[in-house]
């Protein structure tokens, strides 16, 4: 019951207005590396103004406990801000869960404070807030568990999965509709929250590791939309704006990710991803491949004038990014033009490879997007693929029966030579065979990515000395 929140003293509204502007500027400055850190400053300033404005709210009696909670939260936040860069995907999933947890708790508190005197519209946005928040909490925790590998990464599917999931959602929505008409039915509220929590788990269970970039983006969007719904409940425009910004950010990212995997738009919206991976278990026939040693690989790389390195999740798993940077340095010193080709869904979250390579001090102007570099592959002497598979699979262009048919890929098969660092001939995560490996121009470099790259670097520096 806080109608003052709406009108509020003018000062508070001005602080919220300034915070809204700063949030938009923060995202605007994020568009390129030179201005991006200014964006953080804008975001932080906006956040401080908003919190100060809120502390000035009318009717506040208990500042001590607010301070206690802020201090505890900061204490938890610092270690979460200092995790290893390789752990960023699971950290991000975890923070989606925290954000949605906050929104769900506030929604629940508001429900019990206001019921049964809740107008229909307010109850409907409150239900939106809590259902979206609830499913984001458990969905994000599941995603974080899969990324941290405390939960099995393989997709878990069963027949009728979509029917079960949609029925759960339908029941939650039915309860919401009933609550809108009968705001006094408080005994139903816990069921609605419980079902949305279960729904979140069910939503992420069928999703495999390779689909994580889409899922994380989608959960990001849900978290934003639930915060915007909370803004409607509290009649607070700053919350609506921040939620809308976050919601559209997650939405755009999930659209980019789904396009990069050739998934349809509805497929993303209804969360029915992950099924593709399970279906393809074609019989492997033993076809001949050519393999090479680190010495041979070093020789070919040293003789090249244009090299493109294609990193994938395997590079992150092997923690090979620093060795890859050494390879980049060794080749650049010899006058070889080395660039990196980054597929939008390489890794486990949007932009994952860029962050890992930036951490290893690879200059960001050497990191190329798929569309930028694809036209150049016919002029490339060597494409070196490190821990990537599906994003280089030419079957996506030619084989209509392939589960990844239609997915845009990096055209490495057009370069003069292809080298693939891979542990063994076992198919990658999605279980799809890659015809690239059997081409005449392809050399397979079998071994751990980090060890193999280290050996190539040794060869290059040894030959030089």
């Amino acid at each position, binding site marked *: 019951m806080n109608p003052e929140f709406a009108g509020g003293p003018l000062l508070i509204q001005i602080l919220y207005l300034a915070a809204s502007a700063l949030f938009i500027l923060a*995202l605007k400055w994020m568009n390129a590396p030179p201005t*991006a850190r200014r964006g953080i400053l804008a975001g932080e300033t906006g956040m401080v103004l908003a919190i100060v404005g809120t502390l000035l709210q009318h009717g506040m009696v208990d500042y001590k406990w607010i301070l206690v909670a802020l201090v505890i939260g900061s204490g*938890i936040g610092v270690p979460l801000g200092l995790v290893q860069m390789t752990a*960023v995907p699971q950290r991000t999933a975890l923070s989606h869960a925290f954000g949605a947890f*906050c*929104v769900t708790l506030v929604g*629940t508190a508001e429900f019990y404070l206001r019921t049964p005197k809740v107008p229909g519209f307010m109850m409907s946005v409150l239900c939106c807030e809590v259902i979206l928040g609830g499913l984001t909490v458990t969905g994000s925790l599941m995603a974080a568990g899969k990324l941290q590998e405390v939960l099995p990464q393989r997709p878990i599917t069963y027949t009728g999965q979509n029917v079960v999931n949609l029925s759960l959602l339908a029941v939650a929505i039915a309860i919401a509709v009933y609550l809108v008409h009968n705001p006094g039915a408080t005994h139903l509220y816990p069921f609605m929250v419980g079902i949305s929590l279960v729904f979140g788990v069910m939503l992420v269970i069928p999703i495999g590791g390779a689909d994580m970039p889409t899922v994380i983006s989608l959960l990001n969007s849900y978290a934003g939309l639930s915060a915007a719904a909370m*803004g409607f409940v509290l009649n607070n425009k700053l919350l609506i704006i921040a939620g809308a910004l976050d*919601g559209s950010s997650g939405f755009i990212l999930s659209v980019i990710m789904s396009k990069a995997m050739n998934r349809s738009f509805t497929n993303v919206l209804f969360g029915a991803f992950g099924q593709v991976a399970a279906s393809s278990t074609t019989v492997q026939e033993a076809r001949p491949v050519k393999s090479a040693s680190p010495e041979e690989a070093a020789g070919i790389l040293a003789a090249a004038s244009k090299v493109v390195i294609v990193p994938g999740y395997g590079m992150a798993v092997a923690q090979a990014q620093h060795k890859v940077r050494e390879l980049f340095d060794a080749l650049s010193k010899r006058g070889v033009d080395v660039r990196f080709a980054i597929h939008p869904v390489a890794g486990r979250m949007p932009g994952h490879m860029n962050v890992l390579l930036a951490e290893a001090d690879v200059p960001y102007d050497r*990191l190329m997007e798929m569309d930028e570099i694809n036209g150049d592959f016919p002029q490339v002497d060597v494409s070196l693929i490190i821990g990537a598979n599906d994003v280089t699979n030419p079957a996506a262009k030619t084989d209509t029966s392939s589960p990844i048919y239609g997915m845009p890929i990096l055209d490495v098969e057009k370069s003069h030579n292809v080298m693939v660092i891979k542990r063994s001939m076992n198919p990658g995560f999605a279980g799809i065979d890659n015809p690239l490996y059997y081409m005449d121009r392809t050399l397979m470099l079998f071994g751990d990515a980090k060890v193999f790259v280290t050996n190539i670097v040794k060869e290059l520096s040894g030959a030089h000395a």
Partner: protein
Amino acid sequence: MGVSLIDGLFVFMLAGFIGFEVIKRISPLLHTPLMSITNALDAIAVIGAIVLVGRHESRLSFILGMLAIIAATSNIVGGFLITDRMLKMFKSSRPTKS
């Protein structure tokens, strides 16, 4: 209530379009830091929780509000911190060459 609903929808619609236009322009290079900063900004939900704790209207709302402040603050602090760490790592090769 009716007026503020419509107001709210206008604000939501405009902010959604601004978000769309601004975020569309962000280089894929920075998609990971983008996600971590939007996470931190989204934790603005903390202001709803602060009001719950500050007003202390019921024991339930107080406890839920405390937990909510803790969760959101950890996102604010952690989100800005890690975004800053990531952005510090992005270096161009051009200045070093000249």
